[in-house]
């Protein structure tokens, strides 16, 4: 067996980099734009006078003035202070489905960079056909009857689902009566937050200690003629799959409620289980997770929301349709909830996801699920063998594609908690892990999700690093608590200071204003 590689001597750059405005020197230039030739100038005339008055600036923009070399150095430095999402060991980010996003798709997406969303339909037939075909794929994968790609992210799709549920009950004259949405504590927080924003009361179910999922009795107690819907993630944050999810769905539907399935992270189920067979009325996928497009700071997202036919009329406008000859955008949908975002979603994301799905093929999608689950089972065995780690709920039962572990034991023994270990991981060149959504129902939590693109060596490295840190915690707890020692940024000693609105601002300009500083003079 190959030796496990731990990067003992890793050290991140720490540039102490100023923000770019602080690097500005009046008059300094990156590029000297050549003056147009006299002839051209004369021919063109005063082009600025052709701009409408309201579009003209009164003052010059306050932009940093820096030479080319220093601009490039600045951004190089910043990039060296990151761990490089996508090319890092991102097993850390449980509940986020971090996987490698093939570069070729990024390249392909540049093909549509010049398409404008206001272009006439007849000029974007190719793009619309990709929307149409990708919708078909998601219909096949989920069993739903119609999709929208308008929402810009997962939570946005879940909010759209809540809006559709509101429209559905309203159309039946039952909205006032049906004002309660049921969810579970280990579903994603947006499954409670977005229906709440949409005006519903939220009832949260807690899991049974032994099974790790809520009892049917708890659900039955929660369901009534006031029930509008169930919003549920499965597997939940714990990685435990609710094996009687179809029974849950049935109980809610029999009471007149709708059922929404949060499938943001569908990696463990592609090609294996579908929302339709479990009886759900609607579901969503985070395209920027499961379908291989980047997320976080690497790129925009899309929440693909699918519904069964009885809800299709409520979907946002426009939908993408095909009349046998051409593709078109359908705005003529009188019962639609309207628009939830400008135009028709983030087209490059759909293009990339389409390419990814085509490359995988049906068998490939299933393989994604199988490898994700296998990776997770392998990693779980290794992580649970570390002294100090526990996994709460459903002892001995397999998780699907992620696991919520905890360091409670280690913490009580050494005083080193999950936040300390999270910071220390960075010292080995590995992405800080995701602890847990709030509230921390599981104490000292951490959540790992080793998707299909990680190798066995990645998994071994990951487990070995955590094991090493647990040893360090026993030998020298203060050392771990004082970590990171080798990362670009250090521990936040006074987090409350970062929350101080009188001190900080979101832009340089607002910052200057707040502190009544003169803007640097414009060159």
């Amino acid at each position, binding site marked *: 067996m190959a030796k496990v590689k731990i990067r003992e001597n890793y050290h991140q750059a720490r540039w102490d980099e100023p923000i770019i405005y602080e690097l500005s020197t009046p008059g300094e230039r990156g590029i000297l734009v050549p003056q147009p030739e006299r002839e051209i100038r004369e021919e063109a005339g005063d082009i600025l006078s052709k701009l409408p008055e309201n579009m003209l600036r009164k003052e010059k923009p306050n932009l940093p003035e820096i030479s080319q070399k220093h601009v490039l150095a600045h951004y190089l430095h910043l990039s060296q202070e990151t761990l490089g999402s996508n090319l890092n060991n991102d097993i850390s980010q449980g509940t986020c489905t971090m996987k490698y996003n093939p570069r070729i798709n990024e390249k392909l997406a540049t093909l549509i960079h010049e398409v404008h969303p206001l272009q006439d339909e007849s000029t974007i037939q190719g793009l619309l056909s990709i929307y149409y075909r990708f919708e078909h794929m998601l219909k096949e994968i989920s069993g739903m009857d119609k999709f929208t790609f308008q929402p810009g992210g997962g939570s946005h799709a879940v909010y759209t689902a809540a809006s559709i549920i509101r429209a559905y009950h309203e159309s039946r004259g039952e909205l006032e009566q049906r004002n309660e949405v049921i969810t579970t504590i280990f579903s994603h927080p947006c499954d409670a937050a977005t229906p709440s924003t949409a005006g519903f009361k939220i*009832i949260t179910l807690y899991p049974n200690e032994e099974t790790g999922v809520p009892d049917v009795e708890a659900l039955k107690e929660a369901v009534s003629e006031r029930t509008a819907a169930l919003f549920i993630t499965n597997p939940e944050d714990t990685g435990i799959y609710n094996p009687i999810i179809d029974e849950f769905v049935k109980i809610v539907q029999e009471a007149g409620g709708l059922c929404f399935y949060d499938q943001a992270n569908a990696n463990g189920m592609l090609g294996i289980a579908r929302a339709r067979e479990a009886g759900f009325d609607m579901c969503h996928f985070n395209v920027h997770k499961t379908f291989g497009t980047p997320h976080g700071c690497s790129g925009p997202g899309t929440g693909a929301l699918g519904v069964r036919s009885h809800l299709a009329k409520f979907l946002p406008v426009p939908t993408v349709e095909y009349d046998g000859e051409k593709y078109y955008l359908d705005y003529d949908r009188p019962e639609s909830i309207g628009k939830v975002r400008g135009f028709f979603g983030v087209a490059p994301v759909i293009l990339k996801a389409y390419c990814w799905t085509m490359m995988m093929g049906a068998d490939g999608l299933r393989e994604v699920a199988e490898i994700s689950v296998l990776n997770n089972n392998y990693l779980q065995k290794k992580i649970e063998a570390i002294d100090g780690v526990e996994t709460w709920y459903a002892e001995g039962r397999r998780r699907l594609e992620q696991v919520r572990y905890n360091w409670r034991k280690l913490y009580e023994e050494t005083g080193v908690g999950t936040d300390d270990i999270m910071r220390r991981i960075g010292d080995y060149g590995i992405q800080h892990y995701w602890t847990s959504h709030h509230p921390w129902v599981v104490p000292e939590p951490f959540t790992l999700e080793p998707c299909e693109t990680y190798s066995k060596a990645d998994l071994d490295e990951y487990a070995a690093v955590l094991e090493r840190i647990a040893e360090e915690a026993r030998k020298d707890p203060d050392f771990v608590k004082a970590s990171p020692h080798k990362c670009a940024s250090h521990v936040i000693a006074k987090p409350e200071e970062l929350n101080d609105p009188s001190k900080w601002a979101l832009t340089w300009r607002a910052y200057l204003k707040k502190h009544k500083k003169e803007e640097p003079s414009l060159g």
Partner: protein
Amino acid sequence: MKLGFIVNPIAGMGGKVGLKGTDGKEVLEKAIRLGAKPESPIKAKKALEVLKPYMDEIELITCHGSMGEEEATDLGFKPRVIGERKDKVGPEDTEEAAKLMLDMGVDLLLFAGGDGTARNVYNAIGDKLPVIGIPAGVKIHSAVYANHPRSAGEVALKYLRGEIKTIREAEVMDIDEEAFRKGQVTAKLYGYMRVPYERQLVQSLKAGRPEQEEAAQDAVADRIIDEMEPDVFYIIGSGTSTRPIMEKLGLPNTLLGIDIVKNKELVASDVGEKDILRIINGQKAKIIVTIIGGQGYIFGRGNQQLSGEVIKMVGKENIRIIATKGKIVSLGGQPILVDTGDDEVNRMFNGYMRVITSYNEEIMYRVKGL
């Protein structure tokens, strides 16, 4: 930084030998005869150990012998020792020491014991001084204790170093141990002490920041008030969670007792069981209760006035449980408990009940009748 440190050396001795506490001289002697060994000093040392690296910055004030001096010097501290040396120590020594420490201006009092000890400290200092308890007793209902000795040490350290600035009110409760050993349980809510608030350490869980908790309590109160029906009696239980209801109604509140409200007016204050039965007398009423103390009880601890008979008269469907999410999370998955002393009433609660956690949020939670 001045830290007061008191150890009740005999706390917890009964537990391992099957007794239910060590209050009362005969019981202690019996515990020792049965082979009980002092547990409390070991736990107290675990807490103090956390402060060891900062020994030079902290002025430690403690009591003679096993009430703190021994534990501290074992760890290398050089504490200032107060009071007089005694062979046998009792509750009065804890009270005396706590009073002295208050007068000496300690910044925080760290003490080890159980519910009895918490009560002694409360009697001496009330809410004049922040405290944190090292759990060492057999049964702990009081919420002034950290969930682990080490955590108590960490809270103390963080508070002294200014890293924790928020203080919360935590219940001081005690069981009548005499009755307890005869199989009857009645825990009284004696009052509230001030405890530095770091959720993660005090209750091992990070369930939300204290400002959020306060906002949540307010939202719950708004919900209860908005849903109040005319001509229905509202029996408002004890505790800090119900306090905002009375405050928002502009009515005087009994923190440690039960008040009755109708049509948003006060009907009676600080009522006993008999008063409630007489006032309600079969008319429509609702009970608003919260979880009291560290063990998760809604009935039978800290609100004995809400007896089995009262509950039967009002009906289970007219009970509203309120609690912040933080409080629910701090139960660590353990059910909410009911122990009214009436088995039939207790059993009626087995199952799931709604807990109102915000204006438009509820948690469906398991309830267990003992």
